């Protein structure tokens, strides 16, 4: 919504600078999104009237004048001869500049002395003003010029102004009008709101009554509770006057012609959308002397061409304005081509009505047709304003397009709305705002907004001000947002000024929420992974169905109204997002990347229970949200270093597994089994699963190079994704101290040749089953293939540590235990123990 500073000043006095106005509006809750100054022509030049003209004491050809500039008197020295006391002239004030001539610097007027006498400005010739008139001396203005009036305004040209672009919150449709904004300013300043006087001189009123020229029949009172019609006869369609056109232009409305411009002007001024019909294009029913406006629902399949030339297919939910034979407007949204004002229009029917907001909104949405009119009606127009706005439009049409006004108005308003009444308790004001206000103060604030007290018990003489007595207030019809007590309290807060409400220190309170500990666990996961050298990533929740299908052939959760096919499903996994991030990094030559992400993934569960369908109806596929943790690695394992055999080593699968093991241990999840995935997988080249008892925690592996290629990733990529909800549920953070071993350990190493297919896990199981006495730990320290190892075999070397918590072991007893293990390995795994 755009308004201008000068336009506002027509309705209320205030002497704020443009910047202060912006600040005050902002603090009233009307956010100023933009403010632009329009440098008008003739800035600083005003109409002035010469009061006296005397000879200059020191110069024959100069005169010394006193002039009235509208605000006071000034002394001016002047060299022209063609004027006398009483003449009205153009006066340029000190500080202002004369219009520049092409190629010349503008000339700025200062207070100066001319032949020893001070001159506070300069009276101008037409040449000096850059006007075409050729006069020897000053430009003498018409008698009707008003001292103090900007000269540009006198000429009918646009003066300097400031245009504000305001953000109006949807609850305040009354602020979509200049008068609405002015009313707020009036409330703050305490200055009165000046509404334009709307009267029609008798000589502009025709003898005919409008009721004899048009009828109104509302068929659906719910959708149109009020409809008024007025008729101006004998107009001449022409461009609107300059002042109106320039004003409309400033606030971004295209000028059409005088009548249409008036309807727009009144809408911007008052907030009431109007429509003007060419009266002669409304058809009377056969046998009737005059047309009837019928307000009705559209018929199934009815079609209608709106003003913009579009043919619209209507449905019975939409409201039409029609005559007896055909529709003429889409009520509250847009007029029809068949009845619009045109160059031949002579008689104008002014519609000023109130339409049901929800219905307008539905129609506008369905037809995808948004207009200034629908915008206002769908937010709620002022039902009390219809008649006034119609009268105001008639007045301006008579002024700008001539003609005469048919007497009276047709005002179909079958059930006039009662003003809403709201009771307000001062105690509640204190409860909510924390400030103590008396009933009188509250009443004063509200009355400034035209919210008047409806009833108040008479107070006994001499009784103290009833500080806490509830009052009942009448809500004016333009304030559709005020519905209950708390709404009035907000108004009190606005006018009192929220900046004046004192802050109070935060108070203690108790409370708990199950998510509180989840939040902490998240922090622990992050701390661990950051410690492992990974960077935290945040991926998009919305990804493409193609990316989602890389991992799962279960259909992902689809959006019904996606923005694009790149973001049309909810991620079923964090991995596609991490792949995007890897691609982004590698394409920017960050080749070495280790990322992790914590986030939710979304999947369907048939017949499950979710927030969206708590009933778990089997018809609706429920959506589950699961917290996951994912890791992605590519490129070099360690930061760049300048020496050492491993300095260029790239990440491999055991880096990833090591991180997972370290993380799981730190996080308190024990007993996780890593195993090769039972089924081949097109996403991974090689992959494994993490199993905790019967729970599958997740999977990890090396990305298939075919997919890596699609993501432009040249180094091997290692990925893991775990179910964090399960991890959090299964973790054990209980810690208890174990005494430090007091007796020395004894170590025995074994190096053995094993078939390739024998896993480390199989070795460990075999050792475990041998149950050697006092075995404290077994550690794999070498795996070797190649020299001296036959194909199909591998050499694995283990360190066994034996120790007793109670005594120092002897070599002999350790040897006995160890022999048992070696024997078992030979027997069960065909191990060939090498001499070391």
């Amino acid at each position, binding site marked *: 919504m755009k308004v201008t500073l000068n336009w506002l000043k027509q309705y209320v006095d205030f002497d704020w600078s443009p910047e202060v106005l912006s600040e005050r509006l*902002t*603090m*009233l*809750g009307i956010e100023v999104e933009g403010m632009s100054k329009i440098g008008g022509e003739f800035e600083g030049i005003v109409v002035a009237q010469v009061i006296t003209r005397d000879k200059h004491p020191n110069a024959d050809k100069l005169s010394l004048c006193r002039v009235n500039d509208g605000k006071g008197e000034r002394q001016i020295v002047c060299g022209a001869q063609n004027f006398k006391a009483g003449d009205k002239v153009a006066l340029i004030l000190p500080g202002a500049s004369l219009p520049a001539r092409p190629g010349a610097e503008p000339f700025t007027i200062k207070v100066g002395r001319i032949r020893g006498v001070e001159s506070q400005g300069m009276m101008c010739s037409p040449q000096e003003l850059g006007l075409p008139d050729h006069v020897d001396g000053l430009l003498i203005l018409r008698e009707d010029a008003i001292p103090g009036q900007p000269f540009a305004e006198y000429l009918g040209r646009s003066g300097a102004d400031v245009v504000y672009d305001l953000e109006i*919150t*949807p609850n305040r449709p009354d602020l979509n009008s200049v008068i609405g904004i002015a009313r707020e300013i009036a409330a703050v300043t305490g200055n009165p709101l000046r509404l334009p006087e709307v009267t029609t001189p008798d000589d502009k009123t025709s003898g005919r009554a409008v009721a004899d020229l048009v009828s109104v029949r509302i068929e659906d009172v719910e959708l149109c509770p009020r409809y008024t019609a007025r008729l101006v006869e004998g107009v001449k369609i022409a461009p609107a006057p300059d002042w109106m056109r320039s004003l409309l232009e400033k606030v971004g409305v295209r000028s059409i012609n005088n009548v249409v411009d008036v309807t727009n002007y009144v809408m911007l001024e008052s907030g009431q959308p109007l429509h003007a019909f060419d009266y002669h294009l409304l058809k009377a029913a056969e046998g009737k002397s005059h047309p009837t406006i019928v307000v009705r629902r559209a018929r199934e399949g009815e079609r209608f061409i709106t003003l913009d030339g579009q043919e619209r297919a209507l449905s019975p939910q939409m409201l039409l304005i029609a005559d007896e034979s055909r529709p003429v407007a889409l009520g509250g949204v847009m007029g029809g081509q068949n009845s619009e004002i045109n160059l031949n229009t002579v008689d104008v029917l002014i519609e000023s009505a109130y339409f049901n907001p*929800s219905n307008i*909104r*539905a129609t506008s949405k369905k037809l995808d047709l948004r207009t200034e009119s629908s915008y206002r009606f*769908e937010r709620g127009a002022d039902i009390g304003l219809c008649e006034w706005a119609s009268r105001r439009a008639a007045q301006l049409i008579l002024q700008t397009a001539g003609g005469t006004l048919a007497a009276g108005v047709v005002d179909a308003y079958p059930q006039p709305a009662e003003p809403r009444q709201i009771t307000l308790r001062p105690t509640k004001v204190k*409860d*909510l*705002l*924390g*400030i103590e206000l008396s009933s009188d103060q509250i009443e004063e604030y509200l009355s400034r907004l035209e919210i008047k007290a409806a009833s108040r018990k008479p107070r006994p003489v001499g009784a103290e001000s009833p500080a806490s007595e509830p009052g009942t207030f009448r809500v004016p019809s333009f304030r559709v947002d005020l519905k*209950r007590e*708390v709404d009035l309290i*907000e108004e009190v*807060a606005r006018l009192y000024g*929220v900046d004046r*409400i*004192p*802050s*109070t*220190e*935060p108070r*203690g*309170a108790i*409370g*708990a*929420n199950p*998510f*509180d500990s989840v*939040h902490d666990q998240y*922090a622990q996961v992050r701390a661990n992974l*950051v410690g492992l*050298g*990974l*960077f935290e*990533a*945040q991926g*998009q*929740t919305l990804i493409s169905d193609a990316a989602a299908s890389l991992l799962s052939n279960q259909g992902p959760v689809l*959006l*019904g109204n996606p*923005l694009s096919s790149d973001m049309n499903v909810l991620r079923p996994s964090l991995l596609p997002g991490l792949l995007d*991030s890897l691609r*982004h990094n590698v394409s920017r030559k*960050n080749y070495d990347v*280790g990322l992790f992400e914590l*986030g939710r993934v979304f999947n369907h569960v048939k017949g499950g229970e*979710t*927030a*969206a369908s708590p009933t778990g109806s089997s*018809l*609706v596929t429920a*959506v589950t*949200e699961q917290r996951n943790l994912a890791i992605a690695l590519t490129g070099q394992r*360690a930061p760049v270093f300048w020496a*050492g055999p491993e300095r260029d080593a790239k990440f491999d699968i055991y880096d990833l597994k090591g991180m997972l093991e370290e993380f799981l241990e730190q996080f308190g999840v024990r007993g996780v089994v890593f195993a090769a995935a039972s089924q081949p997988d097109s996403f991974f080249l090689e992959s494994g699963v993490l199993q905790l008892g019967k729970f599958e925690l997740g999977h990890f592996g090396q990305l298939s190079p075919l997919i890596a290629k699609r993501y432009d990733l040249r180094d091997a990529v290692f990925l893991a994704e775990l179910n964090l909800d399960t991890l959090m549920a299964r973790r054990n953070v209980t810690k208890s101290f174990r005494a430090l071993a007091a007796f020395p350990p004894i170590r025995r190493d074994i190096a053995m040749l094993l078939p390739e297919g024998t896993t480390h896990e199989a070795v460990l199981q075999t050792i475990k089953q041998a149950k050697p006495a006092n075995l404290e730990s077994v550690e794999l320290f070498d795996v070797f293939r190649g020299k001296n190892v036959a194909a199909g075999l591998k050499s694995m070397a283990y360190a066994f540590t034996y120790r007793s918590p109670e005594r120092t072991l002897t070599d002999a007893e350790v040897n006995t235990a160890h022999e048992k293990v070696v024997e078992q390995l030979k027997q069960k795994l065909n191990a060939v123990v090498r001499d070391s």
Partner: protein
Amino acid sequence: MAGFLDELEPLKAAALAEFKAAPDLAGLEQVRVSFLGSHGRFTALLKQLGSLPKEEKPAAGKAVNSVKLELESALSSRRSELELQAALPKEPSDFTLPGRRRGLGKLHPLTSVTEDIVRSFRKIGFVVADGPEVEDEYHCFDALNTPADHPARDAQDTFYLSQPGDGRQGSLLRTHTSSVQIRVMEKQQPPVRIIVPGRVYRRDNADATHNPTFHQVEGLYVDRNVTVGDLKGTVEFVFKELMGAETRIRFRPHYFSYTEPSFEIDFSSALTRKMGKEWLEIAGCGMVHPKVFENVGYDPEVWTGWAFGFGIERIAMIRYGINDIRLFYENDVRFLKQF
């Protein structure tokens, strides 16, 4: 006797000189053997001690012992010297060479900001809460006093899930964390003090200031006699914690369907002035609308409360001077390393 002692002093001097001259530990060992070994010169001298006359033995023994101690001590200190010398690298280390680093990762800047916000709230007794991101219309809109045809619903362009089956449009991606207010109040009686960080979704095309996914933090406080003053006090506390003690806060009347009165919060600090602005909008807030209380079964005559919410990206952008919201979701390591 005289001959014996005459030999002692030169032998000692010779041993000390040779200890000193030994170039390395092996050389030193040779020297040691040549003097103190079983066939060494000093050992040989020692053996002569027995052949001395009885009355000369004590004095000679004393002298020999003192020299022996002296030699052992000199040997030991020379050995330490040579050990150190042997341990030294061939060339001294260049301490300006880069170290071998074990890189730590970094938290995402959105996480750091969220953690800071949560920490400030926890200091004053708030607990963290959350709810589903796939929401229903009731919790996201209706319960928050935003009925279906409410114009405010226009401002929030919502993603809906496509629903196979009966085709009804029930599930949506929450457009704000305020839905969690409702979920918590449905389950819990006042007093309530929660802070809700989380992901939210709006149907905006990605550009420098928009991403369809972003994060918000919501605060809700319900108790007896909670006032606008409490709201102001808490907001001031939290923002000073977050943006520095010199931060100033102002409230402007605004409109949200679920609070009444409603305010927008602007803040002012060195950061905003660096951006060329005195005041920068940072959050929305207000007193919980009585209708919302009624919807969750709280009596608005007994309980009052406030709620406020703000965008985490916006705070992070202001705090770190980040000019494009998309950077948060690209996860470029050069970006992530900076925070």
